[in-house]
């Protein structure tokens, strides 16, 4: 049973455009939703995270939008740059349990 479904698998965006990655979860008890960024040959690194008591969180060019009723959350990358090219993972957890990850989205930002 896949607890966090992530889409799309891959994404190509023009430089300066908006990248959007979506995730849906099943367990309504989840209460923490992070996004991780991974560059080739490196481990994933925490990018931004949100809790379900807010609908949006913004950090620089990165924004998480959260829809509790739809059990969905998404990552928006504004003004996408070639340096943003990486694999992005959404994840979810509830207290006392390990993170459950989506399958990842490979983002390519082309000039």
């Amino acid at each position, binding site marked *: 049973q896949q607890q966090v479904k*992530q889409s799309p698998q891959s994404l190509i965006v023009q430089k300066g455009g908006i990248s959007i990655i979506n995730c849906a979860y099943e367990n309504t008890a989840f209460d923490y939703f992070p996004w991780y960024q991974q560059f080739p040959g490196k*481990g*994933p690194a925490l990018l931004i995270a949100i809790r379900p008591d807010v609908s949006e969180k913004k950090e620089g060019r990165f924004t998480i939008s959260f829809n509790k009723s739809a059990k969905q959350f998404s990552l928006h990358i504004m003004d996408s740059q070639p340096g943003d090219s990486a694999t992005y*993972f959404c994840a979810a957890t509830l207290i006392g*349990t390990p993170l459950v*990850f989506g399958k*990842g989205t490979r983002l390519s930002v082309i000039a």
Partner: protein
Amino acid sequence: DAGITQSPRHKVTETGTPVTLRCHQTENHRYMYWYRQDPGHGLRLIHYSYGVKDTDKGEVSDGYSVSRSKTEDFLLTLESATSSQTSVYFCAISVQGRGGYTFGSGTRLTVV
């Protein structure tokens, strides 16, 4: 990655041999995790630890065992390696068992 190191970084081993991967942290974090990463599957939890000698199974624990005799070290053992265990293995640490994980740089394991 600062505070967490994995060894070896690369390993090629033969089918049927035991293999041990090591994760070492200098952060004194209570929680440690082993994930494997495979194309199309993302990151899947193998085992995790919530303290010395306290471990639990994850989603894909069959064929793997772990040990944690010291806070700083978390060992993953493939008891008899199979080709299906060819993967990139990541260790992660966490202060509170939730929130931001810090990942190591990974071990690329090839079973031939």
